[in-house]
């Protein structure tokens, strides 16, 4: 398969490390044509996006009867998809904010596109609650807007807390992402060859020139935003977990849900980060910036958070027995042995078993193994939400009320379509925006610290 060498495979140009970093990253957005892989991926993404559009259109026209939701499983795939996407977003914030506070400088290679991933994931997430209600033209009722009915939203409901949590999360993530890009927009602006590019990036860069006095306040704001984003990311998936844990349903009502969901979110999110990072570094020639070392660290985090999720599974199991609550115990037996056992064991295999390969150094330094496990974990985390939501609803207290839920074609088309939206946005980001935080990578490059400077 001989192809002309892609411009991304060539070593980056520049007389010093900083210039090479600039070139390595900027060329992704500046070359006349993106790599062929990008076109193929974009084609698939657009196809899925169209499916999304068609599905949403049909849903608006016909109503939520096209879902498989049926007594007793009234909450099904749309909410599973919502939790799935929100969870994925969390890794981006963790990389941006928490790893920053922990002074893990390796994050600079991946934090930009992880933050982008967060925002696109949250967009996909936010669509589902809006869609899955009976009258999707009324979501503005969820906001405390004065109205002629003299009514206000119900703040005692976790679903209302979701509005604020996901809304705040989306806003803060976007602000953080944008702020991080200001210096890099400056770089793009200064390298622009056309007036249009210069105007657009100039606007976005706000006239950033790298003044140290400005850097000082900028760094302070960055630290503050990181310090705010850290508890925020814990709170968002905790609030999402409250959607379930505040109920009295066996399998839903467990006090460990908040940290369990957060650990699971980070777990699934990192899996998505590696799923994106491995092909991106391959096709965009970023292997010198996103190294195997970075991938290995991410693999370790996947293993660690996977173990935290496993801890939560064990605690639920133990307390279900210890609590002596027959309904609770039944829920867990039902998950493993009942009609949805296939989903449960898929979840266990993907979430608990597959990350175990990362105990081996060989496995966790092989990008394609990491990619494979990343994909499996994403599947596993989707199944985890499926197991939690659907098995608990399909068989709760009263056997006469039990029922089997079957998703419909449209349930699946919306899920697949959401991936279309996500990947379309992500691929556009890769092509047009600074994909790696150039200023941050430079700041932690060894050349940035001369003799006479302190080390971190």
């Amino acid at each position: 398969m001989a192809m002309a060498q892609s411009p991304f495979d060539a070593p980056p140009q520049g007389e010093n490390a900083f210039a090479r970093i600039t070139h390595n990253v900027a060329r992704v957005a500046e070359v006349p044509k993106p790599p062929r892989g990008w076109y193929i991926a974009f084609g698939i993404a657009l196809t899925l996006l169209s499916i999304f559009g068609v599905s949403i259109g049909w849903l608006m026209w016909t109503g939520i009867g096209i879902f498989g939701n049926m007594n007793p499983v009234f909450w099904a795939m749309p909410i599973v998809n919502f939790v799935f996407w929100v969870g994925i977003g969390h890794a981006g914030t963790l990389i941006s904010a928490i790893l920053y506070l922990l002074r893990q400088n390796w994050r600079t290679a991946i934090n930009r596109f992880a933050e982008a991933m967060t925002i696109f994931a949250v967009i996909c997430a936010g669509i589902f609650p809006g869609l899955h209600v009976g009258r999707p033209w009324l979501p503005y009722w969820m906001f405390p807007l004065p109205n002629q009915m003299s009514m206000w939203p119900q703040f005692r409901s976790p679903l209302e807390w979701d509005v604020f949590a996901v809304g705040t999360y989306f806003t803060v993530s976007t602000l953080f992402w944008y702020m991080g890009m200001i210096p890099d927009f400056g770089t793009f602006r200064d390298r622009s060859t056309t007036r249009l590019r210069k105007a657009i990036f100039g606007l976005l860069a706000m006239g950033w020139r790298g003044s140290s006095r400005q850097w000082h306040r900028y760094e302070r704001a960055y630290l503050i935003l990181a310090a705010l984003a850290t508890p925020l990311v814990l709170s968002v998936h905790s609030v999402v977990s409250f959607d379930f844990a505040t109920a009295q349903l066996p399998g839903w009502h467990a006090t460990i849900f908040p940290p369990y969901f957060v650990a699971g979110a980070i777990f699934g999110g990192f899996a998505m980060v590696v799923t994106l990072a491995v092909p991106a570094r391959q096709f965009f020639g970023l292997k010198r910036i996103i190294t195997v070392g970075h991938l290995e660290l991410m693999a370790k985090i996947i293993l660690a958070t996977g173990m935290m999720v496993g801890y939560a599974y064990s605690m639920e199991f133990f307390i279900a027995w210890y609590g002596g609550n027959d309904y609770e115990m039944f829920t867990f037996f039902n998950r493993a042995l009942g009609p949805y056992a296939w989903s449960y064991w898929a979840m266990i295999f993907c979430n608990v078993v597959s990350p175990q390969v990362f105990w081996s150094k060989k496995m966790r330094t092989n990008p394609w193994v990491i990619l494979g496990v990343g994909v499996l974990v994403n599947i596993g985390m989707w199944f985890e939400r499926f197991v939690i939501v659907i098995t608990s609803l399909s068989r709760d207290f009263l056997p006469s009320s039990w029922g089997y839920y079957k998703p419909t074609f449209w349930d699946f088309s919306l899920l697949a379509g959401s991936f279309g939206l996500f990947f379309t946005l992500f691929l556009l980001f890769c092509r047009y925006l600074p994909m790696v935080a150039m200023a941050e990578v430079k700041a932690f490059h060894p050349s940035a610290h001369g003799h006479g400077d302190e080390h971190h």
Partner: protein
Amino acid sequence: MAKTKETAKEGGFGDNIRMDGLASKLMGIAGGIGVIGLGASFGLGYTSDKSQFMHSYLTAYAWILSIGLGALWWVVLQHLVNAKWSTVVRRVGELLASTMPMLALLSLPIVIPALMGDSTLYIWADSQKMHADHLLHKKAAFLNRDFFVVRLVIYFVFWGVLSRYLLSKSVEQDKTGAPEIRSKLQGLCAPSMILLALTLTFAAIDFVMTLEPKWYSTIFGVYYFAGAVVSFHSFFALALMWLQKNGRLAKSVTSEHYHDIGKMMFAFTAFWAYIAFSQFMLIWYANIPEETEWYHVRAHGAWGTVSYLMVAVNFLIPFFGLLSRHVKRNRMALGFWAVWILVVHWLDMFWLVKPHMHTEHLPFSILDVTCTVGMLGLFIAAAAFASQKVNLVPIKDPRLEKSLAFENF
């Protein structure tokens, strides 16, 4: 402004990193206070008001255990993530974690009565009562004296062996400087962390949650863990300050290190509040009597006042107090908050344990003071004992230089 530090490679460390006579002095004083404190507790309490004694003892024990386990967790974490800022202070952490044998010993006044069927604390120690109750007999396979002891043995053996191994390997590196010790310990600490999470959880369940065997919470282990982390870091800060005041580590431990310890105190104050709130709110919201019963006791009367007080003293006040970086970098201020946090986390244990004894009023007695002081003394004596012949800094750890020189944001 480069700091020049002589590392152990050049022979002299440039700072006093040996306890020498201080260790035996500390052992003597702390140990003495410990023995007197506990002796007085036994004398006062066991004979006159056994229930008061048992509950006060358990409260103090849960508190001191959380400090020790917090230390062990911290050391394992530093190895696991290959932390560089903490190398210079890690040996002190290892010494605090080496108190496991003493903690095992201190558990005996709780374990032995339970083994003998005394159900003052744990109703499940009385197997007759267990089998008579329609709910409790289902848990008797877990909640019985023998399995309890087996579990405790597992916990203490694991904690003891792990803490000892981590300390001895670290001390070995002082002599040989072997760099592979670092990676070996990092590798070991991964499965160790998993086992630590499980043993800590079940210890918290065994000692505290089973006081009310009909109540349960899946997050309980995490709750105890949060308190352990924040208590340990506070104790750690005070220990380092005390050492510096006594001429040890005067130059090696800087405001940067205190700043990082302070950050953990701050962050885990918030984390504790998050876990405490999650547990409470979910139980409040679902309003299931089986679960709310535990909170109901703590929400009314004198206990209710304590609960509201805890929102302020365990969360709001230390949160705002520790917000500023200037506070975290100032030894006096940080020391104040360290003491504060240790006190309010003792209050947390009190609030967890004592309602089992009295639901109407707060059963605070002199025994609470003597038990706590006694255990604290013996805990410090055990750490001092471990510190006798070792360096207070892992002098040949490859990350030491970075740790000495690092600067915060």
